[in-house]
């Protein structure tokens, strides 16, 4: 199939960007969205143009690298799917597709569709861990954890840190991301000792990075490629109040 692409091109963080039109011809429905971009880029290079920079790595939907606003939606139209797992069979011949980077002040554009998400790392560095040094941990079965708690903690821990929640929120709030880590650790006995400090430190770091607040519209949940539930934001708020 043949498609028209309207792609955000921006040389670097300092220069202004703009939408540029490209044709994507002879695209197979079996291609992933990123493979379609590979085809377009190969053409651009042969023509002597600068290829479109975009972020990707595992292409299996788990590393969280890929991040494209596709027709205004983070990771495109399908629920629970990352850009790398979106296949061209989701589009029709002749479609026009807009490609933009994540839109958030806390995620500055580095080039084209690539943004700087290091704010997420700094939030984790502020407290998203259990303080245990290597060695000397007790036997793993010495601490039984109800299956239900372990399962919900796992659901929260599934967050891949891609930033779709931020990109899709009108306030660029990182509360779904933060709440996932808070909930994961707050649901487990290992996370209890530091839970008050953790939530305060992570929320402070989130504010410092310039992420906005939640206004309960849940665009984040709708955009999340890993189906992280908004209920975790409730857990975050509760833990924050208790701290």
């Amino acid at each position, binding site marked *: 199939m043949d498609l028209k692409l309207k792609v955000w091109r921006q040389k670097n963080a300092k220069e202004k960007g703009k939408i540029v039109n490209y044709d994507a011809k002879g695209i197979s429905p079996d291609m*992933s969205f990123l493979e379609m971009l590979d085809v377009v880029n190969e053409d651009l*290079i042969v023509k002597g143009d600068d290829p479109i920079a975009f972020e990707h790595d595992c292409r299996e939907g788990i590393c969280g690298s890929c991040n494209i606003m596709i027709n205004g939606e983070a990771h495109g139209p399908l629920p629970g799917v990352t850009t790398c797992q979106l296949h061209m069979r989701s589009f029709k011949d002749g479609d026009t597709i807009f490609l933009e980077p994540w839109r958030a002040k806390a995620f500055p554009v580095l080039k084209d569709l690539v943004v700087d998400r290091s704010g997420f*790392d700094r939030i984790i560095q502020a407290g998203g861990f259990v303080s245990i040094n290597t060695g000397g941990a007790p036997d793993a079965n010495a601490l039984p954890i109800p299956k239900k708690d372990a399962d919900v903690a796992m659901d929260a821990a599934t967050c891949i840190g891609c930033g779709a929640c931020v990109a899709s929120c009108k306030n660029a709030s990182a509360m779904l991301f933060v709440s996932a880590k808070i909930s994961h650790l707050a649901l*487990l006995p290992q996370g209890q000792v530091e839970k008050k400090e953790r939530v305060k430190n992570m929320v402070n770091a989130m504010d410092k990075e310039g992420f906005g607040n939640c206004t309960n519209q849940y665009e984040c949940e709708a955009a999340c490629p890993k189906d992280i539930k908004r209920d975790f934001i409730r857990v975050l708020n509760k833990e924050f109040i208790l701290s």
Partner: protein
Amino acid sequence: MSLDSKIPSGPLEKKWDDYKSHIKLVNPANKRKYTVIVIGTGLAGGSASATLAELGYNVKTFCFQDSPRRAHSIAAQGGINAAKNYQNDGDSVYRLFYDTIKGGDFRAREANVYRLAQVSANIIDQCVAQGVPFAREYGGHLDNRSFGGAQVSRTFYAKGQTGQQLLLGAYSALSRQIGLGNVKMYPRTEMLDVVVIDGHAKGVVIRDLVTGQVTVHSADAVVLASGGYGNVFYLSTNAKGSNVTATFRAYKKGAFFANPCYTQIHPTCIPVSGDHQSKLTLMSESLRNDGRIWVPKKQGDTRNPADIPESERDYYLERKYPSYGNLCPRDIASRSAKEVCDAGFGVGPGGQGVYLDFSSAINRLGEHTIAERYGNLFQMYEQITGENPYKVPMRIYPAVHYTMGGLWVDYNLMSNLPGLFVIGEANFSDHGANRLGASALMQGLADGYFVLPYTIGNYLAEVGFGKTPSTDHAEFKKAEIDANSQLNKFLSIKGKRTVDSFHKELGKIMWNNCGMARTDKSLKEALVKIPEIREEFWKNVNVPGSGSDLNQSLEKAGRVADFLEFGELLCLDALTREESCGGHFRSEHQMDDGEAKRDDEKFCHATAWEWKGVGAKPTEHREKLEFENIKLATRSYK
């Protein structure tokens, strides 16, 4: 130069404990006077960086992703082995050791593997203490499942996302140390060279992938945890960024590259759908616990699988290997799939696929249980193929997955280049000619959390503190100039072909001539063609853009240039190893029934290659493998 593996003397089960009791220690107050550089933040690099910083060393860590959380270890699905014997089904350190040696087709070093089995239990304790949400039983205790190549249930898992959860555990420990200022983290950077001073590794050359700036960093020791080289085949299950550059450039600086031809072929991968394909997606091996593998008994049978009655299906693994069945090791399952497809029984477009069928498990356990066990994998499959695996069987085919070769290391995980340590998939030590499922995660974390932190201390105590060289040293200057001139060379060629087109061409040769089955003829052919592609690359590659900003084509050019040299080394190693072993089938060497034929008389050794220049034949060194505790036997899973 002789290869001294430095295996401690004494009985196998006491080697590691005795070693730990007698190594030199660094006084806690002196640890901060040492700087260690770690390249890579996967399970091995992330856990090593965190642990070294916890001990008090200054750590500088580099990764090419935008965040250390995205290292490729995150993609591992099925689980991690540990000899906990929680299931009371007869597991032990010895049995895990035995299974791993056998799974590696008797081409791994006994002492290293035994140590791996010993520390495996600590890994689970450590990860649980960090909050890794492993699967639990209703009583609150950890759940286990079985995996290929084992008859006990020793695999711990977190849904189909075990690698992700273990990596996030290591990443959280690393993040804590970054927050405390004990680790200086450099994301979006790439290592371009190792700097060697007076025979010791003392630093690295780094390119910032955003600004393009090349800088040099000095240290008292360098740790490479940069993963494997499966992307030499272009199509593989590796992340797109996985590359050989760090280990290959260390090889060019004098570190020996061992067993490069040991690449693991994974049996359960989604088949290739067309020329546009950029990578292959693995379906976890854990699926083989409940999925049954079959092909139609009739060649070229294109009927809908549901219309093919039981009597017309060949469950070939269950037929050929009755005791292990669908859980036979990866190399055997892969080769069997290739055999049935080559014989014309394959299914799907092009006939390059076999069925992995869950219908009997769904009938027995219900769709709900299957969804609970493998839901995310089923979803992923449907996303990629457009077919619903609850309704129709999955189609799978083998693909390049993990690489067991890597830089040669001794028992201390130090390469022959003093001060250069190599851990995880980047070294060659633990998996022999093949590896079992759920064992690579184990090695990554064992090396990073529990082995390297001891062995590196021994080295650092020996060299002494206060000797970190200045980056003004001539070797640093020279390495920086060399790195810059290579980058400029790529940009100046201005040819007609893209970097990817060369990579694809190389990958096809590697897969066709040096894949699951290899012959003397196919390898010699590859050894003629690869230098030709390389020559054209240096004349006709087109790398657009500049070296002073984010330039993904330039990044790729460096990596593909290395693959073009490394591919030749891999084929040479395969040509030299005249036996069939692990996943590597030299067609000249097979039993009467078509099983792989090992040659213990001539090849019970690791081959370590020494660089002699581009196009020049590297020098072969051999480390004889001694099997004192396990009798060399023909591997049988029948």
